[in-house]
């Protein structure tokens, strides 16, 4: 017995003694007498460093240091705001007579040295990253089982994850970091500088996940901590737990109870492990009842816990950092909400059936523009210390209406570093994250009147006008503007069913013991983020379905059977990540045309070697619109204590056509080799 194992056992046994005072140690099992004669404590765990070696020169474009406009000089031309009026120009001494009607391309503003910047080129003031590694994790887990009686046990799994690696991290904006007081809006722990790898924080609550304790570089939590009671056909689980439903793997069709935790390695872990450590646990009561041999009822009520996205500037962040996100999980009262559902599962020989009905808050949430709340005037100088006449003009014009800062606070914008610096950047990112750059600007203007009007913003009619307005305001903002969005959650009903069938064919043939599984869910009036980020979310009836074929086939007498899985998924409203298909197929210069449906094909296999000491894995996800993810891997388990896994993730988001037309567009930075070395005790 190792020293660590002994220490851990002492801790566990001490806890047991403290709990009941009746346990005794006896090898790996404890026993006693009386009420707790069946009592037993079991314990196990592992520690595993994980590294992901970056194999491309691309960086995550959603982070400050991965932004391509850190290396691209973008031209900007300011225009006279169409609603500024001739009088104001006149007050400034301009002899220009305004033609009517005006728009955001009507009157370009000239450059006046030391006075007015009307036209320039801008390059984001952030040094590009050059990461050798995407990931340096140290993970440790312990699982404790305390069997009180034959019917009652406590199951606990404690997971600790630390990221102590060195990256080309974002560390603030250097000389520009104090421009206009630096970033003012949002949670300073998330937007104040260096990335915060682990803390999940929402507006009004720094600790929204129960049984989780985290700092910027570590996280400790209980993925499971529940009491399990079983008597006859009844099973009850009470406590923090994750729930997985459905037969399909990786494609989540019936697997709706829990959101995902996309911190750490996002969805880019070994694909064949599915979401083993990704489902967000929640305090829940789960009841199971085996009605007959073949029919099982499985229901739950659980506290609503949202999907957790990676924090700004962490390697696998999925929200552009030019946005400041205000998560309303706490302020909106969602912390007190419950989700509940029932699944009926029936097996009759070769046939299997399941049906679900779930009422839940969609854990992914939806986003829209929100007032920044940042009461800060536009800066008097630009990042180059040049006088900012445009910004000063806006400030002065708002003196009588409470100040520009107050009015800006009522818009979704904040004049602080790290935002969008040019219209080019705006449209590039809008297309990349499946948003509509032109109408998104209009939504930001229209949904926040009169504040937007007071700062001279107005709707545009087309892309060119949007470019004019955006560049004008970025110049007026002293260089850039940050956008503010909020995340909200909506209740929905998921109705789903699945059928599986195991074929009988000629023994040994490809059609023998082929497992065919079809699953589908229907969600009426599901709420999606509008591609404009407008206040009116999309409400659409949503179908998600999948066909899964699984097969074990022996090709050789010397090697165990190869496991194959071929899956096809069809979605009618959103993509695999929950983004509305209406935001698809935008470009740097054109608004999205949208897609009518999304289709994905997954093919994977596993080939164990004799004795299963080595195992080759291969997975690929193909989007017919031009994206592919390929992930070969090798698992090696030389002894019971040690395991070594290596896998390479290759993503090509431009096999054909527009990368923003396929699921993987924007993920090309994640080509990487991941190595994990585990020691279990």
């Amino acid at each position, binding site marked *: 017995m190792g020293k660590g194992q002994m220490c851990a056992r002492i801790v566990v046994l001490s806890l047991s003694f403290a709990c009941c005072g009746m346990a005794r140690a006896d090898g790996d*099992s404890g026993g006693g007498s009386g009420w707790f004669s069946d*009592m037993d404590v079991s314990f196990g765990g592992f520690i595993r460093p994980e590294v992901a070696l970056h194999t491309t020169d691309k960086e995550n474009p959603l982070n400050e240091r991965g932004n391509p406009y850190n290396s691209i000089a973008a031209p900007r031309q300011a225009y006279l705001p169409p609603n500024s009026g001739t009088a104001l120009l006149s007050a400034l001494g301009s002899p220009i007579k305004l033609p009517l009607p005006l728009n955001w391309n009507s009157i370009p503003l000239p450059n006046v040295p030391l006075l007015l910047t009307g036209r320039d080129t801008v390059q984001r003031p952030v040094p590009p990253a050059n990461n050798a590694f995407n990931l340096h994790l140290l993970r440790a887990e312990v*699982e404790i089982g305390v069997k009180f009686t034959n019917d009652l046990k406590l199951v606990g799994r404690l997971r600790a994850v630390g990221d102590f690696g060195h990256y080309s991290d974002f560390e603030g904006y250097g000389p520009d970091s104090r421009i206009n007081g630096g970033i003012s809006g949002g949670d300073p722990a998330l937007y104040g500088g260096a990335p915060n790898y682990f803390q999940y924080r929402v507006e009004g609550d720094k600790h929204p996940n129960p049984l989780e304790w985290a700092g910027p570089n570590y996280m400790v939590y209980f993925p499971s901590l529940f009491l399990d009671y079983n008597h006859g056909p009844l099973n009850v689980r009470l406590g923090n737990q994750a729930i997985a439903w459905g037969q399909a793997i990786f494609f989540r069709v019936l697997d709706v109870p829990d959101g995902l935790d996309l911190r750490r390695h996002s969805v880019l872990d070994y694909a064949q492990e599915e979401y083993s450590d990704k489902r967000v646990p929640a305090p829940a009561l789960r009841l199971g009842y085996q009605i007959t041999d073949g029919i099982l009822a499985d229901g739950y009520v659980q506290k609503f816990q949202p999907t957790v996205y990676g924090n700004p500037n962490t390697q696998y962040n999925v929200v552009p950092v030019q946005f400041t996100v205000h998560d309303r999980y706490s302020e909106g009262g969602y912390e007190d909400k419950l989700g509940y559902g029932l699944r009926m599962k029936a097996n009759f020989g070769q046939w299997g059936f399941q049906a679900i009905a779930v009422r839940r808050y969609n854990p992914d949430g939806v986003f829209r523009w929100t007032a920044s709340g940042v009461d800060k005037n536009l800066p008097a100088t630009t990042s180059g210390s040049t006088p900012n006449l445009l910004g000063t003009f806006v400030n002065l014009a708002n003196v009588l209406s409470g100040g520009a800062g107050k009015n800006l606070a009522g818009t979704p914008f904040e004049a602080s570093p790290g935002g969008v610096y040019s219209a080019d950047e705006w449209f590039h990112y809008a297309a990349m994250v499946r948003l509509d750059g032109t109408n998104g600007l209009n939504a930001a203007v229209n949904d926040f009147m009169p504040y937007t009007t007071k700062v001279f913003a107005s709707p545009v009619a087309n892309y060119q006008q949007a470019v004019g307005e955006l560049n004008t305001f970025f110049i007026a903002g002293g260089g850039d503007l940050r956008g503010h969005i909020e995340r909200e959650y909506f209740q929905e009903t998921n109705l789903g069913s699945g059928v599986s069938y195991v074929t009988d064919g000629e023994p040994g043939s490809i059609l023998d013991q*082929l497992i065919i599984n079809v699953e589908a869910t229907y969600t009426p009036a599901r709420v999606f983020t509008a591609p404009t980020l407008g206040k009116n979310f999309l409400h659409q009836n949503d179908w998600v379905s999948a066909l899964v074929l699984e097969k*074990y086939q022996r090709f050789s007498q010397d090697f165990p059977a190869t496991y194959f899985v071929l899956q096809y998924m069809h979605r009618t409203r959103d993509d695999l990540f929950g983004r509305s298909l209406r935001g698809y197929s935008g470009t740097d210069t054109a608004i999205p045309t949208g897609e009518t449906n999304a289709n994905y094909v997954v093919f994977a296999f596993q080939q164990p070697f004799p004795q299963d000491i080595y195992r080759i894995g291969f997975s690929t996800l193909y989007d017919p619109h031009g994206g592919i993810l390929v992930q070969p891997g090798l698992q090696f388990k030389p002894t019971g204590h040690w395991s070594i896994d290596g896998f390479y993730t290759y993503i090509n988001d431009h096999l054909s056509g527009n990368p923003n037309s396929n699921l993987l567009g924007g993920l090309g930075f994640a080509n990487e080799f991941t190595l994990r070395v585990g020691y279990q005790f």
Partner: protein
Amino acid sequence: MRIRKYDVDYSRRLFLERTAQGAFATGVLAPLWPLIASGDMSKAYPDELTSVEMYTKGKVKTGDVLTASNVDAVKDLLDPITFQQIKTMGRRITVVETVKDPTLLYPMAFLETSLKNKGKAKLGADGNIVDQAGDSWLGGIPFAEPKTGEEAIANLTLSWGRHDYCQYAIRQWDISPGGDPAYQYDFVWAELQANARLDGTSFQNKKDLLRIQSVWFTSPQDVAGSSFLSTWYYDQHKYPDLYGYLPAFKRVRQFPTNQRFEPLLPGITWFLSDAWAAGDPMLTWGNYKIVGRQPMLGAVSQNWHGSRKNWEIGVHGGPKGQTFLDANFSMCPECIVLEAEPVGYPRAPVGKKRVWIDVRNQQFVAYITYDRRGEIWKSFEVGWSRYQDGSTLVKDPKGNSEWSWTYVLSHDIQANRMSRAAHTESCAGGYKSQLADNGVDVYNKYLTNQAITRLGQA
């Protein structure tokens, strides 16, 4: 002095004649089963078949330890892999007294039921085992004196553990070719007879089932919670339904049922197909042939170490002294040698299996498999015993000492990897071995889809 009419050659000739004629009688000096019923088998065989000393002409005596130096004298009494283990790998086996009391070879209830139902079984038109009325088998050994290979395998298949419910807490070590214990697993194997039960009932009136069986791993952490539920149909042409819970998937999923020749976990040498030398529905195999009868040395008694902590067994031999479990073998005067081929599994890596079945209890004492090239591949050796070790014993509900298996040595001689499993008192997770349900609703607790979800823990 015994007349030398019944020397080894006489027995050998008699066994050859019986094999050639397809005769099914057991016993050499007298029919075996009446003696089993009387409780003393000593008059069934000549001393040459019950005494290793007489068989080897004094080269090996009861109480001796078989080693490389003397194993040649008993080469004909061992399967070829066991012989190689002793001859070349440092294995040692103690020869103990030959069993004459039949009750030492059975659970009492199973023996009583076998005697009660003797002669009532037949093979139905579809090859399944039925009673004279054509209903499911009544319990106990169906064919006390098997005439065919099908009848011989039926004796192994219909009731694996010879109890209506068995739950084995198992600790297994998998030994690398270098002799190191590379992997160690704790798991529980549970079997519930649905029919062919000793209590004469069909469990919950499930007349279409033979048994419900599950296995769940409890240690180490990376496999803890992996569990499989296999529902066997009474119709032995049908593959069992198989459901599995894998911790990574966090849910029960359906698995194909014909993958019975695959390593369950890294390092494990045995397949599901190897269990009890009859791990598959018997009619999914074919070409059953009784190819011989012979005496054997087998681990049929005195192999339980209940006085030791967790019933664990000492180890020895191999490169690091860790490869083999200590075992006691004794003379088995008459064994059927059965061969069969996996005709229902055309892609199976196994070409055929050979099983030596002790006619005294119709249980196997040796079992080896051959690969598709005809080369010897693996052995699956099981130790059996009454559960009595000095004053320590495990009792059945009537107060008799229990009987079950005590260890398994599964040796892949081609890869030179050994899996050694011990039937222990308890294993990680707090599960204890038991040979009855002890009043617990074991069906709902261990043998349903919901159960394996729960056993999957976190």
